[in-house]
């Protein structure tokens, strides 16, 4: 279904294919972007949205297929190349230098110069002021980025994009860290950009934004483009079905299990910000988890989800206060090794950065947190280590050539299974998972859900953080919400609805 024969796309992607080691991120994807319109790209995490945007904006230069700009074939050498023809991207993780001022960030890398070849601060500040007033951001252009709130920082990013002659502005989930009022401001801004004829590529997985904002929609699923049309031509429910491919309940069925005794009880957990600001990242959070229970923790970016895990694990003992009880015994956790001995396992959000030693073998990664188990007379036994690795390789179906293969060469899903194995090897009583399915494909996701559910049946208490509502609603028995470092709601499984949970998580 074509949008309209009269509209001509500014930029068009044809049969784009991108292969990463172990993952086919994009498979023959088509995309058309129209001037003066909001072109939404929707899809689940791992569907390939970000990869596609990185190709459009010149971040990735190796791919198959072609890009057309105004009907002409084009290939970008780098992001500067893309920017020069008017394509700018605002990444989900903002790319600003916190220590520099607003003006310095806007003109970073192309500062206006005086005749003496020094930076023309006056001109830089003047132009920045013009941009900010156009975007209705009331802030000092000489103020540091770090003093701005996330929503304001995002507007600086937009100012930066506008300071180039932008024709296509790509926004990757721009509202994921914004409050409701900030979101409204952003939407107004987008409307005015539209009037100026800028093509907006808007990535989201929030359906209300789609209907509110977008003119065209492209749906990606597992690296393929499965639908493209005007938004008014397709009901939202159909978009959701296309995104998921099937209902989440259809393929993941929670096994019945009986909740056991209280395993972990957290009371009044607070954590200060580092430095002398005296501000709190977490404030007076209390909750408990029972054996065989899956507790979901939901919150927006910056709500303190990861900080909560780090506080419990004893990563910042000097800034943390509150009590932790495991099996009714109070315990002081001053470092991760104490937490591990007490039966806590932690599967971090960023497996490459926090979970794995990439150039080490699968077997060595699995044994890292439970070395005692593979000792024989106090020395490492390659034999025991090998056996343990083979056991998990089979149990969790880790696709690999052998247990001595380095984990760097595995796909995201299989890497995640290695992290899970590492923590299962510690015989945990309580398992924390932070975004356990981020960036892995749908099949691997299902396997991870199944593993989590099996572990709950075996009696492990599970605490899971996820920013995907359907996911967390499908696997949790109970959900608590966090908002700006505070506890903001609790829901039993019977009460789960997307609206209620989201509402509790949004800043009021």
């Amino acid at each position, binding site marked *: 279904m074509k949008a309209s024969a009269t509209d001509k796309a500014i930029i068009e992607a044809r049969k784009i294919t991108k292969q990463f080691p172990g993952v086919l991120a994009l498979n023959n994807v088509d995309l058309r972007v129209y001037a003066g319109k909001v072109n939404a790209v929707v899809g689940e995490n791992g569907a390939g949205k970000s990869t596609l945007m990185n190709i459009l904006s010149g971040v990735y230069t190796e791919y198959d297929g072609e890009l057309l700009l105004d009907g002409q074939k084009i290939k970008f050498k780098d992001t500067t190349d893309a920017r020069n023809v008017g394509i700018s991207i605002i990444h989900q993780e903002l790319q600003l230098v916190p220590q520099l001022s607003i003006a310095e960030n806007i003109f970073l890398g192309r500062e206006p110069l005086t005749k003496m070849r020094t930076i023309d601060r006056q001109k830089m500040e003047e132009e920045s002021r013009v941009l900010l007033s156009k975007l209705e951001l009331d802030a000092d252009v000489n103020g540091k980025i770090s003093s701005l709130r996330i929503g304001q920082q995002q507007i600086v990013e937009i100012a930066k994009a506008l300071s180039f002659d932008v024709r296509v502005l790509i926004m990757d989930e721009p509202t994921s860290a914004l409050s409701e009022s900030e979101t409204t401001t952003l939407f107004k801004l987008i409307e005015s950009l539209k009037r100026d004829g800028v093509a907006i590529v808007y990535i989201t997985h929030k359906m209300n934004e789609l209907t509110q904002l977008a003119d065209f929609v492209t749906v990606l699923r597992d690296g393929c483009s499965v639908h493209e049309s005007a938004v008014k031509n397709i009901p939202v429910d159909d978009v959701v079905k296309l995104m998921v491919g099937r209902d989440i309940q259809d393929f993941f069925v929670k096994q019945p299990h009986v909740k056991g005794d209280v395993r972990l009880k957290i009371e009044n957990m607070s954590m200060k910000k580092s430095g002398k600001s005296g501000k709190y990242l977490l404030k007076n959070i209390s909750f408990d988890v029972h054996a065989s229970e899956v507790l979901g923790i939901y919150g927006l970016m910056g709500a303190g989800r990861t900080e909560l895990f780090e506080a419990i694990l004893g990563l910042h003992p000097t800034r943390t206060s509150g009590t932790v009880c495991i099996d009714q015994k109070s315990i002081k956790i001053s470092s*991760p090794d104490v937490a591990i001995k007490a039966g806590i396992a932690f599967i971090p959000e960023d497996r490459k950065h926090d979970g794995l030693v990439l150039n080490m073998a699968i077997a060595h990664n699995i044994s890292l947190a439970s070395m005692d188990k593979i000792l024989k007379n106090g020395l490492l036994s390659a034999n025991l280590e090998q056996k343990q690795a083979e056991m998990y390789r089979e149990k969790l179906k880790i696709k690999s050539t052998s247990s001595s293969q380095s984990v760097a060469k595995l796909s995201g899903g299989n890497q995640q299974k290695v992290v899970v194995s590492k923590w299962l090897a510690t015989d945990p009583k309580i398992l924390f998972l932070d975004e356990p399915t981020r960036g892995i494909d749908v099949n691997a996701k299902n396997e991870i859900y199944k593993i989590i559910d099996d572990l709950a049946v075996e009696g492990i208490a599970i605490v899971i953080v996820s920013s995907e509502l359907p996911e967390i609603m499908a696997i949790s028995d109970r959900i608590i919400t966090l908002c700006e470092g505070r506890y903001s709601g609790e829901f039993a499984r019977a009460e789960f609805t997307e609206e209620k949970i989201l509402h509790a998580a949004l800043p009021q």
Partner: protein
Amino acid sequence: MKKQKIDISNLQPLIALILMAVAMTMMSDHFATKDNLFNVARQISVNICISVGMTMVILTGGIDLSVGSILAFTGAVAAGLFKNGLEIEGMNLFVGTTLFGAICIALVVGVFLGWFNGLMITKFKVPPFVATLAMLTIARGLTMLYTKGFPITQLGGQFNYIGTGWFLGMPMPVWISIVVISVSVFFMNKTRTGRYIYAIGGNERAAILSGIKVNKVKLFVYMIAGALAGIGGLLVTARLDSAQPNAGMGYELDSIAAVVIGGTSLSGGKGSIIGTVIGAGIIGVLNNGLVLLNVSPFWQQVIKGLVILLAVIIDKIQKEK
């Protein structure tokens, strides 16, 4: 035990060493004689001792620039204690030391200076480069203070035997380096701490989250580097029959070169003791060969530098494939 698959890229330094040895054998009649080979082995024994410690430090993602100075200070302490005993001015105290006692105290001094490095790095978060650079001048200064700037000479046959003597058909320094290599290879492959050293260099955050006491391991590694520099100090002093206040200058660079040529990554996590030993061998054969071929010492330095570059470039190309 199951045999591990051998990765061809790890064999590169060994192949280079063999090729160099073959080339030297063809170019010089003198190279492949028993005397000369033992000579090379004896010459590299000091570098091997230091470099084994350096390998462990670099595997954790650190660096130790102070080994040359620690070597000088421990050598001086051992020689001074052995020759003059322990004299504490103002207290009228004099304690004579046996050779064994002098060696032990010297090694403790080496461990202590390494511990100080480690403390600065783990407790006060001083970057390893800076912390050990400071120790480079501190330990050199201590050496000058202790020796008052003059060599401590004529230590006698017993001490001298460690550096020049033979035991069961092999020079003593060669025996000592073989012991150092064997113990450290065993340590790196068979103990938890050895594994943790790799994990810390590979991904420090993952190591912390896995419950590894990263600071303890690092502290330990710098202590070992100090101890091994101490052993190097004993060998140098014993061979020259004197402790020179400026001994070991620039040894840290030869040692880093051996580690790098041996295929250990300067960013940590990847490499091996055996690779470093081969790296030290390559430098040794190169030095020896250039002397045998009458290449001027100035050119020798240029060539050595080029070999280091070549080794790293080949390694990079290999990895990108």
